């Protein structure tokens, strides 16, 4: 069953490129997104296709370093490298790129990126709970809506926004239901597989295809048919991975954890559970989007208490034995916040976290292995 699911996923991913091609021929606009703070619903409401962009592989980093400094977050370098070397099909297909002023590295990189393709950067406030931040964000989303209307040639109205919100809520609920299968003890899906599925589904232009695929995987997993073969002993340590986003190509930590006989059962990052939210369908749509998206608990916010609450909820919900907090090199906000994460986990659950700082290269695999192995010995 496992092989069938993965083959099916491969097939859907290949079809996706054709779907994108056809959509373009039909005149549908493609909007490329870099960050979870930008509401994809606005693109969907304009009849455009929202696509995430590449940025999780090491290969294009060398191309990026011809322009960008070496001492910069690998996610930023990889994203930029993919763009300048024209190796990301989704970047190529996009009519416009949407960025956010999340961190210093990204906002300055977007200035250079705009030379490659039309880029719009949302001015993201630095906190979530003041009137000033909310009103800035409201006006940014209005401006964003105008730009999407111009790009797509379609008008975004309340009805189209409402239906886009419903669609994207269904997608996120399907994602959450899939991630939640690993609340089961033992986990019903290997962490690396979960990551691959969530990662590839994200790129699908046809949201319905992704939703039905995730529903199918969830149902199979709940029947226990996707368990690793032979099944792991119930002894496998259950870990939660928090911090920076991970995807295919930047998943070395998950691989090492599995090689050492443990499981990553939960992902508290923007490639994982940070996407498990629901936009309020009863409120005025633009207002509901602004509120929900600004609440994304990323370390660029100060303070970022939402992340600590989410972590506590997930550590309980997924019954984890340990927490690995991952920071990409030169990501100051996650790097600093690691101190608070460790403090909160120790205080509430009585075990320390393992904070790892690394990049996409494989050169420090053994150094990471010894840390993770020592951490597992401690738990």
């Amino acid at each position, binding site marked *: 069953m496992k092989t069938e699911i993965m083959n099916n996923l491969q097939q859907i991913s290949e079809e996706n490129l054709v779907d994108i091609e056809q959509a373009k021929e039909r005149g549908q606009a493609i909007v490329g997104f870099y960050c979870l703070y930008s509401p994809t619903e606005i693109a969907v409401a304009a009849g455009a296709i929202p696509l995430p962009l590449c940025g999780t592989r090491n290969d294009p980093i060398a191309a990026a370093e011809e322009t960008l400094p070496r001492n910069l977050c690998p996610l930023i370098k990889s994203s930029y490298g993919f763009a300048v070397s024209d190796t990301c099909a989704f970047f190529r297909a996009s009519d416009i790129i949407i960025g956010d002023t999340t961190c210093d590295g990204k906002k300055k990189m977007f200035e250079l990126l705009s030379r490659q393709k039309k880029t719009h950067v949302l001015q993201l406030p630095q906190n979530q709970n003041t009137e000033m931040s909310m009103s800035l964000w409201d006006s940014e989303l209005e401006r964003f809506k105008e730009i999407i209307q111009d790009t797509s040639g379609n008008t975004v109205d309340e009805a189209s926004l409402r239906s886009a919100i419903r669609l994207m809520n269904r997608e996120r609920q399907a994602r959450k239901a899939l991630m939640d299968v690993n609340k089961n003890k033992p986990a019903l899906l290997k962490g690396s597989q979960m990551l691959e599925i969530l990662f590839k589904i994200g790129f699908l232009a046809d949201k319905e295809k992704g939703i039905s695929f995730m529903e199918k995987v969830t149902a199979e997993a709940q029947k226990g048919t996707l368990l690793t073969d032979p099944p792991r002993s119930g002894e496998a340590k259950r870990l939660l991975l928090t911090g920076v986003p991970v995807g295919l190509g930047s998943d070395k930590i998950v691989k090492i954890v599995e090689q050492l006989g443990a499981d990553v059962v939960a992902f508290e990052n923007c490639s994982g559970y940070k996407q498990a939210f629901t936009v309020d369908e009863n409120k005025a749509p633009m207002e509901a989007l602004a509120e929900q998206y600004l609440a994304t608990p990323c370390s660029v916010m100060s303070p970022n208490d939402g992340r600590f609450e989410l972590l506590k909820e997930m550590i309980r919900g997924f019954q984890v034995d340990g927490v690995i907090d991952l920071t990409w090199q030169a990501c100051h906000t996650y790097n600093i916040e690691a101190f608070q994460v460790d403090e909160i986990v120790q205080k509430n659950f009585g075990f320390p976290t393992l904070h790892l700082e690394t990049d996409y290269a494989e050169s*420090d695999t053994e150094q990471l292995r*010894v840390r993770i192995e020592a951490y597992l010995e401690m738990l």
Partner: protein
Amino acid sequence: MRYAGIDIGSRTIELVIVDDAGKIIGSLQAETGFDPMTRARKMIEELPYDYIMATGYGRNLFEIAFDTPTVTEIKAHAVGARFYFNEATTVLDIGGQDSKALSIHDNGKVKKFEMNDRCAAGTGKFMEIMARTLGFDIASFGGEALHFKKELKISSMCTVFAESEVTSLIAKGHSPQDIAMGLHKSVISRVAGMIKRVSGEGNIVFTGGVAHNQCMQKLLADKLDRQVLVPDDPQLVGALGAALLARDTA
């Protein structure tokens, strides 16, 4: 029964044999070189044993070659340090190419650890290169530093940059002893930060080759105002910990 622990580090390999009581009844040390498994094989052929456990960076290679259990050097050092000093609360290990600090729970388990292993800054290798640049041999480096007259601050921690900083200090006419002291202090201020992140108080068991250095011992105790304990053979602590774990799990 004879229980062996082998610590395959980046610069040296140590083999320790203990008896049922945990007493060291044999030990060997060799340079790791470019073919660690051949070295390790020769060493284990020299000292017979009944059970063995491997630790250090080469542990996985050893596990594949000799089908033995392994343990991380973190846990091995905690166990080894506790055997020498049963009141040990913190361990600082400065090895050939990495340094680590760890704190130990009352029950002997590791509480927290920090490692520096992505560059040679503040490690045995760093000390070796700096000693050579100043014309000292490594055994007398600490002693020479203790003869300093003037405080000097070395700000570069990267081996490559520190070497050029040292060269420029020599050119300015500073004495090798003063420069040596500055280098020792720069290493200590770095490891002190690492220790503080894992534990705020209590004694520190200092292990690894650099623990032989008296200047380091003194500066560490002064800087943190904590008792510094150095085992008889600080380089054997990791291997000893592995040997004791081999005994406990046999």
